[in-house]
């Protein structure tokens, strides 16, 4: 028995046959004429092989279209839409290919990494030579993986298909089935967020991918909803975006928190003279006043709380309140040890 043909070779022959066929090819024609399919030991094996190969071609971006012949009932044929097959003219220099190589390596997610490396292969075919990566040597940008739900959500958002997902709400811990029109995937603060229209709540919502339990199920047809209104996307994203720049006032022990001091700015115009405040003045003794810019009160509080008593937040009350509440919670982790 001859050794079975390599799957890549079979796929290539299927594609060449489809590209060159006048009109369409039926499944039977593929089985009878295309190299590799005669290897299938049974009808079932052939069906599985052919289904898998069709899926693979479509994943590669090849526009494989199904054509039904009106005269022959359910007689289905296949052809390649040559209009949509080709890459539009793109002329990449070696330096640009080098930058694209860096961009491709940015993704840490295995599925996305596979996609970008295939995309590079396609672009290299029309480039002016191997990419010149020395131009960006030493740079290693990284985008963390969004987990197994990322690629299916991205596909659904691109195709504008509704998804069902099981979500654990942050506020209550309650686990619920949600139906969502996926709009956009956004990487924020190390995690991925899906922004979309929650069909049950009839409102825009954002979902952390890490709180989606199990897998995402696509329901219904592509193009099920119109492209999202940019204003609505914006509103749903507001919670993840940093606010306007503000200035916080800190009291810092000498020679401590240099990483924060290095960002120090001048006291804003009209700043309060805290040393004149009888309540605050004693706290400032032996400390330097440092002003830093921040956009997100929580982020600043999380940074500063790590310094313990070396950094005290004087103003604004919002940041101080966050720090104090973290400190109180931490103080409860173990009872005070009294020395006797």
């Amino acid at each position: 028995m001859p050794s079975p043909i390599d799957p890549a070779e079979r796929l290539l022959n299927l594609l060449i046959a489809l590209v060159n066929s006048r009109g369409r090819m039926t499944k039977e024609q593929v089985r009878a004429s295309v190299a590799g399919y005669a290897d299938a030991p049974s009808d079932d094996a052939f069906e599985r092989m052919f289904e898998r190969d069709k899926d693979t071609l479509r994943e590669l971006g090849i526009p494989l279209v199904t054509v039904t012949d009106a005269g022959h009932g359910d007689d289905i044929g296949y052809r390649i839409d040559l209009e949509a097959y080709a890459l539009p003219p793109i002329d990449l220099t070696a330096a640009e290919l080098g930058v694209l190589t860096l961009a491709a390596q940015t993704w840490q997610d295995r599925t996305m990494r596979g996609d970008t490396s295939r995309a590079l292969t396609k672009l290299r075919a029309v480039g002016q030579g191997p990419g010149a990566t020395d131009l960006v040597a030493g740079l290693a940008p990284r985008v963390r993986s969004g987990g197994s739900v990322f690629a299916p959500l991205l596909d659904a958002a691109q195709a504008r298909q509704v998804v069902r997902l099981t979500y654990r709400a942050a506020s209550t811990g309650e686990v619920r089935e949600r139906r969502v029109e996926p709009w956009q995937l956004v990487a924020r603060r190390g995690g991925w967020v899906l922004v979309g229209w929650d069909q049950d709540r009839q409102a825009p919502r954002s979902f952390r991918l890490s709180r989606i339990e199990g897998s995402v199920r696509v329901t219904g047809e592509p193009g099920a909803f119109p492209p999202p209104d940019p204003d609505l996307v914006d509103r749903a994203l507001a919670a993840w975006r940093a606010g306007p720049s503000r200035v916080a006032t800190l009291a810092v022990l000498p020679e401590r928190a240099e990483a924060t001091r290095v960002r120090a700015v001048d006291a804003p115009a009209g700043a309060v003279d805290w040393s004149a405040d009888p309540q605050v003045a004693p706290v400032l003794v032996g400390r330097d006043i440092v002003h830093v810019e921040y956009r997100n009160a929580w982020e600043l509080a999380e940074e500063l709380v790590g310094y313990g008593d070396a950094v005290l937040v004087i103003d604004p009350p919002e940041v101080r309140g966050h720090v104090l509440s973290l400190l109180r919670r931490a103080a409860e982790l173990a009872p005070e040890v009294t020395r006797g």
Partner: protein
Amino acid sequence: MAERASDRVVRLLGMIAFLDRHEGASVDELARLFGVSNQQVMADVDTLWVSGTPGYLPYDLIDFDFSSYQRGVVRLTESRGMTRPLRLSAREGVALVAALRALDAGLGGALDDERAQVVRSALAKLTAAVGDAAGTVDVSLTLAAAPAVASALATALREGRRLHVRYVNAADVASEREVDPIRLVTDTDRSYLLGWCHAVEGERLFRVDRILSARVLDVPAEQHPVPPGGGEFVPGDDGALVTLHLTSHGRWVAESTPVQEVRNLPDGSFEIDLRIVSPAWLRHLVLQAADDVLDVRPVSVAADVAQVARAALAAYGPLADLPADALVQDGGA
């Protein structure tokens, strides 16, 4: 691991498209272009040579010039209509465009004008080719470095020169060091400089937002062997094992920290095991996550963090007991 059939098909098609645009290419050149071995290129040529349209008689097949090939040059003589370069799939296009946008917006400080220009022209050409479908993904990279530090790091990396840096570690202790830069790792939250630190004679990861100042020295950086995955913080097995019990809101801790193990508990809370190299780093993590921390083991670690918190509360003095809005005053006391 064997290559996926789909990846190989894309390369086979890419080779035909490339060879159609060039008067032959050497096996070496093709190997460099597509990032595979010479043997793989020859195996690919062999596959193409026997592929074609049904019938598979000589004139049905893709063909190369045999005498050129004997001299190591691949010259396409029959393409069977397969010369069109393959378009990018929707996901491929969006993944590349989103990454390029992030490079353009986030790495600005680490690229000089020439390089920034190349990123922008690649982005413009790619966007023109894939259309505006790229809006479905939005990634950002955070350099989080003072402009002067960013530019010094970039210069040192580009020119292969040693750096003198003033760095403050997780325990809030500042020191001066000489570092041979290896790689600038940037992610969505912050950046790290992977470098060879001459003070400790070893490879170290420096958080860029804790580099207080950086000066490029007139000394070439020495070459140091670095594993390709370098830049990922992986604590060794020798660190102390600490377990944090977190509420379900604390998932971000598991996502942003190299954990040894995650155990999900029936009530939605979960436990993570961490190997701790720096107690100061752990203290910071627990304080930061205090709202979501239910328990810390061993007890000695919990006691340490609680003690630090009490000391800080004491330092706040009367400020600790003020209602959140009591200090909002208009123009002084």
